[in-house]
């Protein structure tokens, strides 16, 4: 028994509907070990971690902690088994102070009864002992955590894990929002935890950084393990190569050459702390891909061009004319369209039907003053047949459609505004393979009609197959612009994790 690993997961499988999220994953973790867990978005990392923390129930497989099989069906089971997870969006109570958060749900009391008064001074002393003594950080103890920096809040999360006697600590993208100094501090703490015999699972997109911290790396792809190697055998290129693997053959329509006249010109666009001095242009009929890690500024850039978030400096030109865009209403008036990634929260109007959802961004087409239901049906039916939306006509509830068909309605909504600039964020997210190919065809048809198209996607294969050029963003800057037809996924992945190299910086001129 003493030789049993701290954690052993065997044959873990999980399905969501018809998709296999995880298939036969084995994971072993020993005390004092830091395991790096990497993979592309959707590879199954977070599903695996959620199973381990008890947030999801597994379909198959066994989990053993210190050689004893455990059932992790609720988050409470997870913490009872000594597993703590620190999510990217920290889960503290913003109005409580550090001590109250560390002991939330396990408050110390001045007596044995559950009605006994709370022992605030004991909790504060214990909190201080862990934070100052064990972790060696100076976190204010008497302020509500909403007033503390992200780094301090993270330290409180770690202290909470320690105080609950967790031996297995999972960190999900812990450095995503930290400054350089704070990151160093975090790495020092990870070392300390490691020396104290805790085991850590470290999930991150920042491969370079990760390789400096962990002792072993496990790579997931499409729900399976494709590599599990000691860090000494690995480098960034090998890890990225394993993450991407042999790319799936997808159905991309043949590229149509772009025209020469530029349609959208973005010059020196800056939003401090988000993206910096972005310059590029997109020609009529051109499809420009934009990639980069979460937080690289790619999504914020589109939203700034669309006027959803304000920018600090820089200008946007459409057809050579300065476009004053201060909110989405302006953008639509200037024939700029934006299809956001989160269809459910930012796209559909769930109580309404297909016709309503399709026409809402350009109601003037339904009549100058009085909206004509007949006109709405005509327009909606036109797009339904043109785009091949599978539904019971314009009056069908939008929520009765599949993800792919909802996405086609969203696309139709923006085509109806006769866009000159069509920006799409994750246009095939939550869309099945067949519908994906149809969406690609529609995007290309829009480009052929003279739209300047920008596609942001986490799927590099998609960008290379669909776009003319792909711009890679790294920490708020365009680090490279590559020709899609002649580039490889590895190139994009590498530029996404590396700071810009000098000669790539001229970046964004079209051609």
């Amino acid at each position, binding site marked *: 028994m003493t030789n049993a690993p701290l954690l052993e997961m065997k044959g873990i499988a999980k399905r969501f509907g018809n998709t296999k999220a995880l298939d036969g994953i084995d994971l072993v973790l020993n005390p004092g070990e830091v395991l790096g867990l990497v993979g592309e978005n959707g590879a199954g990392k977070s599903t695996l971690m959620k199973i381990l923390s008890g947030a999801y129930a597994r379909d198959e497989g066994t989990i053993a902690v210190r050689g004893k099989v455990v059932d992790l069906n609720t988050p409470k089971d997870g913490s009872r088994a000594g597993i703590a997870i620190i999510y990217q969006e920290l889960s503290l109570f913003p109005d409580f102070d550090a001590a109250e958060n560390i002991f939330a749900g396990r408050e110390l009391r001045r007596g044995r009864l559950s009605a006994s008064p709370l022992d605030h001074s004991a909790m504060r002393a214990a909190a201080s002992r862990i934070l100052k003594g064990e972790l060696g950080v100076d976190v204010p103890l008497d302020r509500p955590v909403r007033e503390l920096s992200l780094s301090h809040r993270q330290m409180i999360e770690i202290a909470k894990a320690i105080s609950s006697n967790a031996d297995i600590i999972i960190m999900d993208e812990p450095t995503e929002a930290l400054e350089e100094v704070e990151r160093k501090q975090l790495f020092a703490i990870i070392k300390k935890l490691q020396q104290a015999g805790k085991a850590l699972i470290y999930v991150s997109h920042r491969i370079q950084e990760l390789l400096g911290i962990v002792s072993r790396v496990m790579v997931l792809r499409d729900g399976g393990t494709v590599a599990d190697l000691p860090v000494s055998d690995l480098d960034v290129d090998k890890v990225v190569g394993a993450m991407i693997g042999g790319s799936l053959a997808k159905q991309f329509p043949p590229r149509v050459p772009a025209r020469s006249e530029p349609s959208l010109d973005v010059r020196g666009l800056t939003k401090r702390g988000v993206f910096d001095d972005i310059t590029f242009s997109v020609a009529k009929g051109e499809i420009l891909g934009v990639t980069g890690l979460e937080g690289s500024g790619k999504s914020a850039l589109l939203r700034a061009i669309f006027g959803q978030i304000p920018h600090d400096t820089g200008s946007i030109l459409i057809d050579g004319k300065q476009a004053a865009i201060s909110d*989405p209403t302006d953008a639509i*008036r200037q024939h700029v369209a934006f299809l956001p990634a989160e269809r459910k*929260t*930012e796209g559909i109007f*769930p*109580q*309404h039907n297909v016709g309503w959802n399709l026409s*809402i961004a350009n109601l003037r087409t339904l009549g100058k003053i009085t*909206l004509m239901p007949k006109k709405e049906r005509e327009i909606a039916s036109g797009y339904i047949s043109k785009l091949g939306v599978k539904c019971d006509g314009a009056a069908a509830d939008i929520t009765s459609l599949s993800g792919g068909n909802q996405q086609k309605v969203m696309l139709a909504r923006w085509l109806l505004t006769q866009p000159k600039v069509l920006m799409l964020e994750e246009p095939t997210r939550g869309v099945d393979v067949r519908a994906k190919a149809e969406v690609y065809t529609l995007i290309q048809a829009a480009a052929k009609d003279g739209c300047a198209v920008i596609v942001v996607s986490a799927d590099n294969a998609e960008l290379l197959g669909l776009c003319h050029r792909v711009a890679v963003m790294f920490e708020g800057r365009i680090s490279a612009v590559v020709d899609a037809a002649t580039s490889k996924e590895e190139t994009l992945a590498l530029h996404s994790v590396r700071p810009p190299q000098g000669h790539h910086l001229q970046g964004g001129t079209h051609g």
Partner: protein
Amino acid sequence: MADIAATRLRSPLTLARGGGNAGVYLAFVVLLVALGFAAPRFFTFGNLTDVLRQAVPIAVIAFGATFVIGMRGIDLSVGSTLALSGLVTANLIVLGYPVPLACAGGIAVGAVIGLVNGILITKVGITDFIATMAIMVISRGIVLVYTQGIPIVGASDPAFRMIGQSYVGGVPVPVILTAIVFAIAFYVLYYTRFGRFVLSIGSNPDAARLVGIPTDKVKIAVYVLVGVLSAFAGVLLTSRLEAAMPEAGQGYELDVIAAVVIGGTGLSGGRATLFGTAVGAVLMAVVRNALNLLNVNTFWHQVVIGTIILIAVAADRFSRRQKA
């Protein structure tokens, strides 16, 4: 031909237009039939017009509240607005100002209150519930300070009295005016861009902004609309009583919400049925009238109305779950 007629007939009542609460419509009919037997006096023309006239103030305000609630908002200040607007109108009449000016003055007060509500909610960022509750208390306070709790009487200009007390073809003028308000509200909510904007904001506020809807402007406009309609109800009431009561409209905010909810508009926004609201407002007046006719102690009225709200909402929930 038949097909087109069918869609036309269906359209105001379809789900897209807010659905309505079939259970309530049915209960309403059952109640009317039962009343016919229990209290034969109910179905006299005089009593029926009386019921409708009693439903007027709540109905007029509830049409506006249907917009607010469809937008996933709430307005608690309607009763106080009614009182303050009625007070201003009554005062202007007593002072001898021309009738149109007096009415316009009262309605302008309602518009200003709505504007303040809208600005507090959108620009200052105060939750609708809190903002309109504060305005409710302040407006009522102003009424009490000005009147010292004593009614303003003597608003008996003959032309002014006509608004609230005369009949056209046997139908009280306030009822006719309410029907006109209903028709306009119906057109605006279901057949204009503004109406779609309102329901889109209620359905998904983030998506509404991303399809270019000027959400702040629309919200302010909706609160102004409710303010104006509350003021209009205040003018009608003042004209009928020839006086402004300091406690006028007290508790109306809840009656108005009850009418909207009984009609089938959910507080979750996105869907709204004006037809249902009209039924809800009349239903509440019918119940009160019936309880009077049946000599039920007035203290029981509240219990009955509350029970109806619960049954209506439960029936709505149930039918929606069946559909899903």
